């Protein structure tokens, strides 16, 4: 019995920004019925056919798709056909929520505006997640994760002084957009549970992204101090809270790095003791202000010291004396060897019909009574069509055979 076993979601979402939201609910036992298009073989979701592949390249072997769609049921409905639309109506009528992350207005144009969804199921919670939302001059604009994070301010916030933005080396806002969508969906379900009322929740991923830019934005609205100013961004240093030294330093070996952060004077003194070199001892009593004012020089000194050390050994030594430090961990290191993830059971093994067993991302929190469980990989295209039509919509085998024959499924 999962935390959300009483919830059924008619899920038209995909990619990561949508799929990542319903994945979370599925891991807690919600019945997430992912609806895909049989004609284009689910290709709207570009992750479905994208590498890396487990085995031969194809629609069923994408490691990313498998990761993003664990524990979901997969059905196919051809929504170009009236009988397909009728099936979706039947599914909506027995669902608690409808989710999608098409471009704004697409689902309405397919014949399913919120008014229609609410006619089918008065208390439906409908969450649409698009780049710019359903209203406003940019509502027709289209996005991917990299575009969302560029426009919302997050890409700009990440970089070193006097250089191009480094940005995020992946679709961070697909993750954070998915989490924002999950919060909106769950909050909508909580509201419905308490009042019996459904609603259409319009989420604009770019707006969600701007809510993640932190106090930098208030520095502008309150102090009229924009982040686009000389020397900024400077995101390996810490301006809020003010800390120094605070950076990522070269360690022994090729492309090996160690992050060190001194939160206060005591951390600095502990770091000095570990460094043990004359230049450091001389500066042991330097107050924060002086460390900040000279941190470029400090970074050079510390970097020269760290570059002779193994990043894991040094980080452990620093943490042992209380200084926050960490190797910049590569994927295999943090996934295979870091007790912070392995002790936590963060990487469950899911079984996929074609791929077989594969580790996937777990949920980074545990609930003591109704925890998540991930055992099933992503559904193959239409893997559960017959099961869902039978068990959820009460169709008989001969009806289903006919729908297949007519190209509706």
């Amino acid at each position, binding site marked *: 019995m999962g*935390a959300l076993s009483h919830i059924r979601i008619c899920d038209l979402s995909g990619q990561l920004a949508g799929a990542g939201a319903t994945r979370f609910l599925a891991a807690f036992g919600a019945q997430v019925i992912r609806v895909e298009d049989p004609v284009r073989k689910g290709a709207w979701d570009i992750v479905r056919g994208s590498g890396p592949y487990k085995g031969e390249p194809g629609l069923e072997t994408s490691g990313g798709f498998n990761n993003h769609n664990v524990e979901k049921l997969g059905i196919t409905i051809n929504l170009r056909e009236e009988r397909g639309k009728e099936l979706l109506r039947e599914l909506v009528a027995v669902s608690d929520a409808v989710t999608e992350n098409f471009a704004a207005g697409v689902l309405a144009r397919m014949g399913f505006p919120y008014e229609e969804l609410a006619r089918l199921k008065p208390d439906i919670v409908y969450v649409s997640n698009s780049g710019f939302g359903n209203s406003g001059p940019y509502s027709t604009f289209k996005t991917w994760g*990299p575009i969302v994070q560029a426009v919302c301010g997050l890409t700009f916030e990440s970089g070193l002084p006097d250089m191009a933005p480094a940005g995020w080396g992946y679709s961070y806002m697909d993750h954070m957009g998915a989490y924002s969508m999950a919060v909106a969906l769950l909050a909508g379900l909580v509201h419905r549970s308490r009042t019996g009322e459904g609603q259409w929740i319009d989420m604009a991923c770019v707006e969600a992204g701007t809510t993640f830019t932190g106090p930098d934005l208030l520095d502008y609205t309150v102090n009229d101090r924009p982040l*686009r100013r000389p020397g900024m961004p400077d*995101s390996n240093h810490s301006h809020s*809270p003010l800390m120094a030294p605070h950076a990522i330093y070269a360690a022994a070996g090729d492309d090996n790095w160690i992050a060190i952060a001194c939160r206060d004077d005591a951390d600095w003194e502990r770091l000095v003791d570990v460094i043990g070199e004359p230049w450091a001892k001389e500066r042991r009593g330097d107050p924060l202000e002086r460390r900040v004012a000279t941190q470029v020089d400090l970074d050079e000194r510390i970097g020269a010291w760290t570059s002779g050390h193994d990043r894991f050994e040094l980080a452990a030594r620093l943490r042992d004396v209380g200084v926050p430090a960490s190797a910049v961990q590569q994927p295999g290191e943090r996934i295979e060897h870091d007790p912070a993830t392995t002790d936590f059971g963060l990487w469950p093994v899911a079984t996929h019909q074609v791929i077989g067993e594969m580790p996937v991302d777990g949920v980074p929190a545990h*609930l003591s009574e109704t925890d998540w469980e991930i055992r099933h990989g992503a559904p193959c295209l239409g893997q559960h069509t017959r099961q869902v039509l039978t068990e959820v919509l009460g169709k008989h085998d001969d009806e289903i055979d006919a729908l297949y024959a007519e190209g509706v499924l």
Partner: protein
Amino acid sequence: MGADANRPGPLDGLTVIELASERAQFAGKQFADLGADVIVVEPPGGHHTRTYGPFADDVESPEHSLWWWCYNTSKRGVVLDLDTPEGAAKFAELARDADIVLEGEDPGRLDALGIDHPQLRDTHPELIWVSVTPYGRTTSRAHEPATDLTILAGGGPAWSCGYDDHTIAPVRGGGNQSVHMAGMFAVMTTLTALLAKDVTGRGQHIDVNMTACANVSTEAGSYMWHTDKITVQRQTGRHATPVLTMPSQVRCKDGRYVNTGFPPRSVKEFEALIGWLDTLGLTDDCPDAPLLQLGVERGGVSMTELSTDELASAIFGAGREAMVFIAQHIDAMEYFETGQRAGIPCGIVASPEEAFEMPHFVERGFQVEVEHDVIGRSVRYPGAPAIMPASPWRISRRAPKIGEHDAEIL
């Protein structure tokens, strides 16, 4: 959408007792903005995060910390000294009357004070208790020190972020993202526990692990490893990949950057790019325009033929070159708006304040005015991450002053 701004939020009527912490503040803000009565408990003198700048009007006082303002909207505040028996007892009393307790204490601290979840749950089985810690409460690393930087370094994001030149250090994404990721998972799991309580009638403990949150928020960084033990490599302003890809972040005429998005592949996309060049009057000057036309005529290009078909590869390359060409000839904002209107998904690399001021978001009501008596004026905040007409998100008040609500709550 006809939102009635006066309707209560989805968590209206729920009480949250939050122990002030850097780690859980953002989650508490979300509960509060979603309508819960969040009472943030600070130590005497105010919580340490009030010393975090920047400061309003550059006045370095605990009531002017913009960090505190940012992460404590809509909350009420009280002061308790948990290190005294009276303070601890008062906290236990508040917790027993609450629906949710939210805290980001080092593992073991509350237990030592006799006020951890196991000590309070027997008398209050409906309570949902959320702990946000750097490594989870029970892993072997539970007691190691950490900051946002070290969590993002150890948890995966930093490895994927930085520049093409790998003699330059990886980059920490700015904005306190370890707190934001953990905040999202704290809220998602708490709402899940609330829905479970509808069925079971029981509360539970939620153990949010910040390092784990970062680990599962790295997209291909993790799933390439899961799939085939592939290690991605960081690149400037674009996805870390196993094999170097072409730049997608281009500097425009005004010196600002755009993300060009993905070069055209389908006929429709080639037509859109041709149309965009036409609109800008740049077709005749663009050396790649003829190849784009060829892209339309041959029915687009597919990614799978790029390595084997020279013409397809040239046409695909021309799409990218044409996008760079356009960027060199116009300003970034014009690139973003005219490109999108032509049907090309692309974006300006905006600073947070530039994003905030875009008329699109202003029109959607994203800017929210909050009165701040401390500085004698109102301040604009980023608004709702999602528009919920039946149960609106809202900032109901500015962050509390130290002990502001002691009298009415204690």
